[in-house]
């Protein structure tokens, strides 16, 4: 048996401990997690099929003006009412799902893309490199991520892409810290020691042996974070630093609608509900997945 197959055997042993029957049983048993799954699937469906779902697609993306139906309260024709220039708020809210999901996915892709390798390197290599990476991580985590995102947003033009960059800037360290912690606890496991003993390179240990064993933790964290990233994006949008009108971004829509309070309450209310439900969905699902994968995250 070659060295490589031995390592693979041992590594597989540690992966195959996961019991899918048990996982599905656990997920099914928790009704709240199923609600979360339902919401998440629903939001994704809305985002993909928005053009076919909404009654007034043109209102969603453009700045169409229709003075004849300005400021209408919710009705059967306009579920969420219309805004100050007569656009259908329901259509805009549904389209908003596209923006929020895209924002969440891209930010997390960047954060995971930067944070996870750094965490692996810091954990496996250790020494000066590891210490340096973790000190830098500490610096980025020394202020709340929303504040850091605000500071970065200040130097950039307010666009959707820039806001993603700003949020990612403060988000990757969380993944570095998470993976670093996982690596430290995995470092002494049999399969890692075995492959080390067999002379596997550090890169191999990091990405082939250790990384697969961190995936469940990363998935759970990413699901929970999806909600928080969307929330942060909407917050920046609300402060006027994100997507600019007429983009149907939920936070921006609330900021716009706020001017017409309290008489035209529907303008600011419905996009807020959309944020609430979406974020709640991801949190519920993430919570359920955490129980299923038996993962404990930082600070819990």
């Amino acid at each position: 048996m070659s060295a490589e197959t031995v390592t693979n055997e041992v590594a597989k042993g540690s992966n195959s401990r996961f019991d899918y029957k048990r996982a599905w049983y656990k997920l099914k048993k928790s009704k709240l997690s199923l609600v979360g799954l339902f919401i998440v699937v629903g939001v994704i469906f809305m985002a993909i099929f928005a053009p076919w779902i909404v009654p007034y697609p043109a209102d969603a993306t453009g700045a169409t003006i229709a003075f004849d139906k300005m400021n209408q309260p919710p009705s059967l024709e306009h579920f969420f009412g219309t805004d100050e220039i007569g656009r259908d708020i329901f259509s805009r809210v549904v389209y908003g799902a596209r923006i929020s999901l895209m924002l969440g996915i891209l930010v997390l892709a960047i954060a995971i893309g930067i944070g996870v390798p750094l965490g692996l390197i810091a954990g496996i290599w250790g020494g000066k490199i590891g210490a340096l990476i973790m000190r830098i991580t500490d610096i980025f985590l020394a202020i709340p991520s929303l504040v850091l995102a605000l500071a970065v947003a200040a130097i950039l033009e307010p666009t959707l892409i820039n806001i993603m960059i700003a949020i990612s800037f403060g988000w990757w360290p969380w993944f570095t810290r998470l993976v670093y912690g996982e690596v430290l606890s995995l470092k002494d496991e049999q399969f890692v020691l075995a492959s080390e003993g067999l002379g596997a390179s550090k890169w191999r240990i990091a990405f082939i042996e250790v990384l697969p064993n961190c995936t469940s933790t990363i998935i759970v964290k990413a699901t929970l974070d999806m909600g928080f990233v969307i929330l942060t994006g909407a917050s920046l949008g609300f402060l006027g630093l994100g997507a600019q009108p007429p983009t149907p971004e939920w936070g921006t829509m609330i900021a716009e609608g706020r001017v017409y309070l309290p008489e035209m309450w529907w303008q600011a209310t419905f996009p807020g509900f959309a944020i609430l439900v979406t974020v709640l969905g991801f949190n519920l699902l993430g919570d359920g997945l955490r129980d299923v994968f038996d993962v404990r995250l930082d600070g819990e």
Partner: protein
Amino acid sequence: MKEFLIKRTLQMIPVLLGLSILIFGLSRIMPGDSIRLKLGPEATAEQIEAFEDSMGLNDPIVIQYVNYIKGVFTGDMGLSLQTDRNVATDIVETFPATFELMLVAMFLAILIGVPLGVISGVKKDKWQDHLTRVVSLSGIALPKFWIAIILQIIFAYWFSLLPVVGRGNIVPTEITGLRLLDSLLTLNFEAFINNLKHIILPSIALSIATMAQIMRLTRSNMLDELHKDYIVASTSYGLPKFMIVYKYMLKNAFASTLTIIGLSFGALLGNAFLVEAVFGWPGMAQYGVQAVIYKDYNAIVGVTLVIGIVFAVTNLIVDILYGFIDPRIKYDK
């Protein structure tokens, strides 16, 4: 204990120094239109150049940074483009408002979050638990700025119970800058009521997410406690359930909850930016938001640094408190 304090304080320095470099660096790569914005559209290139020179913006960035840090130690955090004053002066003026808001919010979050978490944990899978969990998960998912607006609509506009914006119009004699405290110290109850009315809505809006976090954490800590040997043992000795839950379990559970309270202080600081913006609360976070919008780079650096310091100090305090609650923690590490 003394050594622990010194050690922890020394540990804070490299992080804060790193933070200052990071933020300072960011602020200097900011596009130069902030000066143009400040001087107005008629400003000539020479005027802008002269202004930048006077601000030291044309020096090498390292020199700028060293000068800035030197200034910080003498209480000079540079000129704010919004107010034309020293940023330090602005921060000293606005910080107490933010701090007061945060303290009240944290107080509410603990006062409500802990007992609900306990109930939820003890009544696991009963209706109380389900209700608390849905409420707490929604609380975390709520956009803070949105709930702030909703509270405004309901309590300020519809029922006219509470003021819409602002921090109160009767100002007590300033001692600490925390108006509720000052008005109590000077026995100025009129000012107390007035300021209390103003702080209720913003502090509720600010506390909801933190309250929900504390609730969730207390719940899961209580659930962990349920199966601990010493709790089963307490039951076997015939102790009353109430005592086991609120004394023997809660003290352990709260020790773990405390660590999250330090972290939540950070979240609270971040959310203050949103809540202060909605309620026109004249605090440092609102000042920070304005700074971002006007690209007032000195103010951005100043506010961020102060937040970093507050966050670090809070975590230090939490660590000390933790040692008081849990005798297993020793400071000699």
